């Protein structure tokens, strides 16, 4: 019974990951991060991703307030934030977010406010989606740890 639960959870993990890769939301850099997890660092991925979430939300807030300032849209500063966002997104394998950043940056370099606004909305949407999916992934993984922990004593 518990063995089945562990199998189901593993299948859920694989299905979710397959979906994220197939949709181009994540790329192989995310796999690379998973490879860096081991007994000495079992929560590496979620730790890095949580730092990424924290930083991303700050960047998104900054981008929004820069764009909302109709008087003086500081495109230069937007570019700096976008470079940061691009860099960290690529480091965790958040491919789609990174691609939206590229488009956003292009619009900012042309001082295209409408284009920037569209890109920002898309960015916020992609970010929310990724955050939800990764939280889901981490939840499943936590359940797997619990399921594994309960199983072992009974095997003896």
């Amino acid at each position, binding site marked *: 019974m518990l063995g089945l639960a562990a199998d189901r959870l593993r299948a859920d993990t694989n299905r979710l990951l397959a979906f994220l890769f197939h949709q181009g939301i994540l790329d192989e850099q995310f796999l690379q991060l998973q490879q860096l997890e*081991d007994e000495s660092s079992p929560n590496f991925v979620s730790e890095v991703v949580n730092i990424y979430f924290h930083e991303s939300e700050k960047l998104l807030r900054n981008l929004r307030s820069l764009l909302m300032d109709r008087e003086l849209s500081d495109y230069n500063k937007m570019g700096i934030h976008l470079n940061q966002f691009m860099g*960290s997104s690529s*480091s965790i394998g958040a491919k789609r977010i990174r691609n939206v950043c590229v488009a956003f940056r292009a619009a900012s370099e042309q001082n295209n406010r409408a284009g920037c606004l569209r890109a920002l909305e898309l960015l916020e949407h992609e970010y929310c989606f990724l955050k939800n999916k990764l939280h889901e992934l981490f939840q499943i993984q936590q359940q797997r740890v619990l399921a594994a922990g309960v199983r072992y004593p009974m095997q003896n």
Partner: protein
Amino acid sequence: MASNGGVTWRRTEKIDGFNFSPNDNTTGEVHVLAVDDSLVDRKVIERLLRISSCKVTAVDSGIRALQFLGLDEEKNSHGFNDLKIDLIITDYCMPGMTGYELLKKVKESSVFREIPVVIMSSENVLARIDRCLEEGAEDFIVKPVKLSDVKRIKDYMTREFRFGEEKERSRKGINKRKLRDSFDDLSPSPPSISSSSPSPPQSQSPTPSPSPSPPSVLSASAPGSPSPLDSPTRRPKMTSSE
């Protein structure tokens, strides 16, 4: 030979086949100084290096890197790389001091200029790569950094130490990387995930031996002496726009 306050005999102690000296760097461990303003990237590079059996010190700016090295106040007059930094890996784009500026400062220092410096950047810009190599960077990695990148750096550091042919080898290494990258721009590369098992201990000699053992490139040469490897013509010729 570097002496670290009376622990020179630690080298002979073996625990399970490893030289275990947590307080000094006369073990086979390479000590890397990582510089990146992004916390996410710092975490990743730290982990990549640690899993590759490197000791890591990660700082968030070029200024802090110089402070750590003792280069910021021009007071480092005793001529030793006390910290035994074996490699500096730095992001290119950073607020304040860029990785390029940090590279220049390191290469201008008589004490630290022999430390290999690797530049990381999320942009694959040939002019940028050129500039860094001109200034003496050992290698240039396009982000995101992968385990295979760290392994490559580590490999040539060991060879470099052993054979002293750093210039030739890194030249080839850089060309390979750039070619690979230009192909990467066209098509997605297969996941380059190498095994995460730590590489074998760096010290090859089982017996304690004089200066050639320590992995630090710097301890092999006398302090403050000009390096014969500082040839200005080391940079590979490439067609690029300035």
